[in-house]
C-alpha cells in the first residue's frame, strides 16, 4: 500500500514535469517548418559568442563575426584581396589636402524597415562615436575623424584632423557601420538595426544566434533564408556535430589537430587560409628583467616556434616574426630574425645579468591555443635557465587582470584586429611598451602619401622586430570546413566578419 503511494507520488511528479516542459512552448514556436517552398537554412558552427549586439559598445570578436556585413553595412568593404570596395557608398573622392572624404551613397540603399540609408543616417552613426561612445578599439579607429556633415540627401562629407591612410580601412571595421537612426540607441544591444541582407532572428545566449533574410534588402538577395550560428564551448563538440551532419560549415576550426577527421573529400571541403590573428608571447615591458632588450631577445632565441606551432596548433600556422601578416603591402618575412639558438640565448641572458637564471609568470587566457603554447614554451625556456610559472585565467579574468590592469610578466594571446601594427603606438597599451621612434614612423606612415604608407610601415615593423617587445609566435590559420556543396567560401579572413552573404549551396 505504501508502494502504491510511492508510485502515485512518482506519477504526480512525472506529470508535473511533463506539464512544465510541454505547456510552455506552445505559444513561442517560431519555426514555420512546413511552408510551401523549402527554406534554405545554413548551420554554422562557431566558438566565441557575441556578448551583446551593439558592436560600437561591446568588445570582443563575437559580435562583428555575426553582424558585420550580414546585418550591418559599412560605406566601404574589404574584399578577399584586401582592396577597398563600394558597399553603401557607390563612389568617393578625397580632397587634395587629404583632409576631407566625400561619399556618395547608393540611391537604392535602405534599412530593413524600408527607410532610406541617407546622409543623415551616416551622420547620426558617426556622430555617436565622435561624441564619445564606443569601445577603445572603435574610438581608436575613429580618432582621426573630426566632423561628419550631410552635404546632400545622399552625399556625406567626413573631415579629418590630419591626413590618415588608415582611415578608409577603419571605415570597413565595426566602427564604420551605419545604424538606422530611427532605432533607440539603448535597444541596439538586443535588436540591431542595420541595412544588411539579414536581420537578427532568435538569440539564445549560450547556444545560438540566428539570422533571417531581410525581405526588404536593397541589393542582391542572399542565397540562404536563414543562417544559424551555433556556439560550442568545447571545440571538439563542434567537430563531432559537423561529423554527424548537424552543421554545414565550421567557421573556424579551433582544433587543427583534428583536421584529419575531415579528410574525406566526398563529404567535406577544407579551406585553409590565413587570418589577421598574430599569436603573441607578450612581454610586460615594465618588468625589471623584461625591460632589458637582451632578455627579450634571449627569449626569442630560446623558442623554437615551429615546435610551438606543432604542439599547440597541429603544425598549422605560418611563422611571421613581425606584426604584419602576409598579404599586406608592407609585409616582409622577418621570421629568421631570431633563429632558434639556445646558446645565444644563454649568452644574452648572461650579458643582461641573469646568468644564474630567472623566474617569470606566464598568465594565459583559457583560449584553445594559449595553454598548450604555454606548456611548450615553458619547457623550452627552462632549457636556457628561465623558470616559467604558468597560470591559466578564464578570459573575463584575463581581460581584467592582464589586459586592463597589466599585472603579468608574460602572456599569450592572439591579436585578431586587422592592421594592428599601430597598437604598439597606442598610449597605455597593456605591453607597457613605448618607443618614440616607432610612434614617429607610424605617424609619418599614416599622414604621408601612399609610398610613405607602405615604406614607413615596413621600417616600423622592422624596428619593432629588432626591439622585440613581444615574441611573434605564429599566425592563426583560418581553417574552414564545409560540406562540398557550399560555394563562395573566402579562405583568408581579412575582416572581423563571417560574411555569409558570399555563400551559396549547389545542393
Amino acid at each position, binding site marked *: 500500500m*505504501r*508502494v502504491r*503511494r*510511492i508510485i502515485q*507520488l512518482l506519477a504526480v511528479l*512525472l506529470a508535473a*514535469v511533463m506539464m*512544465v*516542459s*510541454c505547456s*510552455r*512552448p*506552445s505559444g513561442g*514556436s517560431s*519555426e514555420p*517548418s512546413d511552408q510551401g517552398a523549402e527554406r534554405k537554412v545554413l548551420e554554422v558552427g562557431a566558438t566565441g*559568442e557575441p*556578448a*551583446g*549586439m551593439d558592436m560600437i559598445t*561591446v*568588445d*570582443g570578436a563575437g559580435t562583428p563575426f555575426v553582424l558585420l556585413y550580414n546585418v550591418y553595412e559599412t560605406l566601404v568593404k574589404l574584399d578577399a584581396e584586401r582592396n577597398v570596395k563600394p558597399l553603401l557608398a557607390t563612389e568617393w573622392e578625397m580632397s587634395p589636402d587629404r583632409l576631407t572624404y566625400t561619399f556618395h551613397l547608393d540611391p537604392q540603399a535602405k534599412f530593413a524597415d524600408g527607410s532610406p540609408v541617407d546622409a543623415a543616417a551616416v551622420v547620426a552613426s558617426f556622430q555617436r562615436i565622435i561624441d564619445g561612445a*564606443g*569601445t*577603445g*578599439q572603435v*574610438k581608436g579607429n575613429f580618432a582621426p575623424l573630426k566632423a561628419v556633415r550631410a552635404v546632400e540627401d545622399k552625399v556625406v562629407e567626413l573631415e579629418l584632423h590630419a591626413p590618415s591612410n588608415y582611415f578608409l580601412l577603419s571605415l570597413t571595421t565595426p566602427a564604420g557601420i551605419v545604424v538606422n537612426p530611427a532605432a533607440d540607441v539603448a535597444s541596439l*544591444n*538586443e535588436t540591431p538595426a542595420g541595412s544588411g541582407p539579414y536581420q537578427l532572428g532568435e*538569440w*539564445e*545566449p*549560450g*547556444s545560438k544566434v540566428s539570422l533571417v533574410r531581410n525581405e526588404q534588402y536593397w541589393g542582391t538577395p542572399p542565397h540562404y533564408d536563414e543562417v544559424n550560428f*551555433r556556439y*560550442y*564551448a*568545447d571545440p571538439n*563538440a*563542434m567537430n*563531432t*556535430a559537423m*561529423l*554527424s*551532419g*548537424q552543421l554545414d560549415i565550421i567557421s573556424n576550426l579551433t582544433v587543427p589537430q583534428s583536421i584529419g*577527421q575531415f579528410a574525406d573529400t566526398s563529404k567535406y571541403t577544407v579551406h585553409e587560409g590565413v587570418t589577421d590573428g598574430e599569436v603573441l608571447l607578450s612581454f610586460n615591458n615594465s618588468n625589471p628583467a623584461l625591460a632589458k632588450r637582451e632578455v627579450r631577445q634571449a627569449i626569442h632565441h630560446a623558442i623554437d616556434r615551429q615546435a610551438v606551432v606543432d604542439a599547440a596548433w597541429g603544425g598549422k600556422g605560418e611563422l611571421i616574426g613581425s606584426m604584419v601578416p602576409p598579404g599586406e603591402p608592407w609585409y616582409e618575412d622577418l621570421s629568421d630574425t631570431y633563429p632558434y639558438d639556445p646558446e645565444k640565448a644563454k649568452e644574452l641572458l648572461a650579458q643582461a645579468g641573469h646568468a644564474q637564471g630567472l623566474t617569470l609568470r606566464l598568465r594565459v587566457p583559457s583560449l584553445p591555443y594559449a595553454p598548450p603554447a604555454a606548456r611548450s614554451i615553458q619547457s623550452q625556456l627552462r632549457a636556457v635557465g628561465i623558470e616559467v610559472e604558468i597560470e591559466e585565467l*578564464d*578570459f*573575463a*579574468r584575463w*581581460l*581584467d*587582470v592582464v*589586459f*586592463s590592469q597589466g599585472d603579468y610578466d608574460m602572456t599569450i594571446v592572439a591579436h585578431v584586429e586587422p592592421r594592428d601594427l599601430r597598437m604598439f603606438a597606442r598610449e597605455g597599451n597593456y605591453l607597457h611598451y613605448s618607443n618614440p621612434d616607432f610612434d614617429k614612423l607610424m605617424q609619418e606612415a599614416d599622414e604621408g602619401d601612399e609610398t610613405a604608407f607602405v615604406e614607413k610601415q615596413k621600417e616600423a615593423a622592422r624596428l619593432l622586430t629588432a626591439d622585440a617587445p613581444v615574441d611573434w609566435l605564429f599566425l592563426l590559420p583560418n581553417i574552414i570546413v564545409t560540406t562540398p556543396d557550399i560555394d563562395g567560401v573566402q579562405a583568408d579572413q581579412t575582416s572581423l566578419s563571417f560574411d555569409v552573404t558570399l555563400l551559396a549551396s549547389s545542393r
Partner: protein
Amino acid sequence: MKRLLIRLAWFAGSLLLASLLIFAATNWLPGDIASVLLGTNATPEAVAAKRVELGLDRPFLVRYLEWLGGVVSGDFGTSMINGRSVTATIAPRLEVSLWLVLFGTLGSLLLALPVGTFAAVRRRHLDGFVVSALSQIGLAVPAFWAGIWLVVLFAVRLQWLPAGGYVPYWESPAQWALHLILPVTALSIVQASVISRYVRTAVIDVLHTDYFRTARAIGWGKVGALWRHGLRNISISLLTVVGLQVATLLVGAIIIEQVFALPGLGSRLLLAVTQRDLVVVQGIVLVLVWAVLLINFLVDVAYQMLDPRLKREAT
C-alpha cells in the same frame, strides 16, 4: 503533523540561508563585472559610473533583499550582459536539464533494479560476482569519459546517433529522443552502478527475512516472492539513494552537457561565470541548490511516511 511543520520550517530556513550564501558568494567574485563589461576601455571613472548604473554601489543587504523579493515572485532579475530577463533565460534551459535528470534517474533505475537483483540472487556464483565487480568498475569511471567514448563509437564511427545538440520535443519528438539517448546513457551507466549496489544489499536483506523464507517454503518462486514481499523493503532504502542521486545527476549533468553541447542549465552557468554575469550565475545556482534541498526534503518526508518506525528516532 507537528513534526511535519517543524520540518517545513527548517526547510524554509535552509532555502533562505542558501540564498544568502549564494548571493554573498557571487558578489564576492573578483574580476569586477563593471570592468569586464567595459573591457579594454575601462577607465576608473567609467567603471565607477557603470557600477552605479548596475546598482552595485548600494548596500549589500538592500540588494540581497531586493533580489530575494524578486525571486519569490518569479523574477530573477535581468542579465548584466544582454539585459534579458534571467527567468526567461533559465526556463528553456531548465527543461533540458529536467529531461536529463528525469531520464537519467529512470534509466539508471531500469538498469540497476535487474542488475542489483541478479547480483544479489546469484551472489554465491561467479556470474553474480562478475556483475557486482562490473558495477564497482562503473562506479569508478568518470561519466564524461564514458560520454566521450560513446560519442566516438556511436556518433563518429557508426554514425547511428547525433554527437550532440538538442532538438525540442515540440519540434520533432523523434529527433528529441535521438539527441537524448547518448547523454542519458552516459549519465545512467554511472548512476546505475551506484544504485545497483544498494539494490543488491536490500535484496540480500530481504532474502534473509523469515517471511521471504516462508513464502519460498509454501511454494513461491524466488522472483515472485521477491516481487510480493521484497519490493517495499527495497523501495524504502532505494528512496534515499535515488533522492541523493538526483542531486548528483543535476550537477553531473553540467559536465555531460559540455560533452554533448546540450543547452541546459549547466552550460549556461559556465558561460555566465566566464562572462561574470552575476545575476545569471546567482539565478542558476539558486535553482540548482534549491532543487537539491527540495528533493532532500521530499525524500525525508516520504521516508517518514513510508517507515513509521523512524518516527521515534532523532531527525
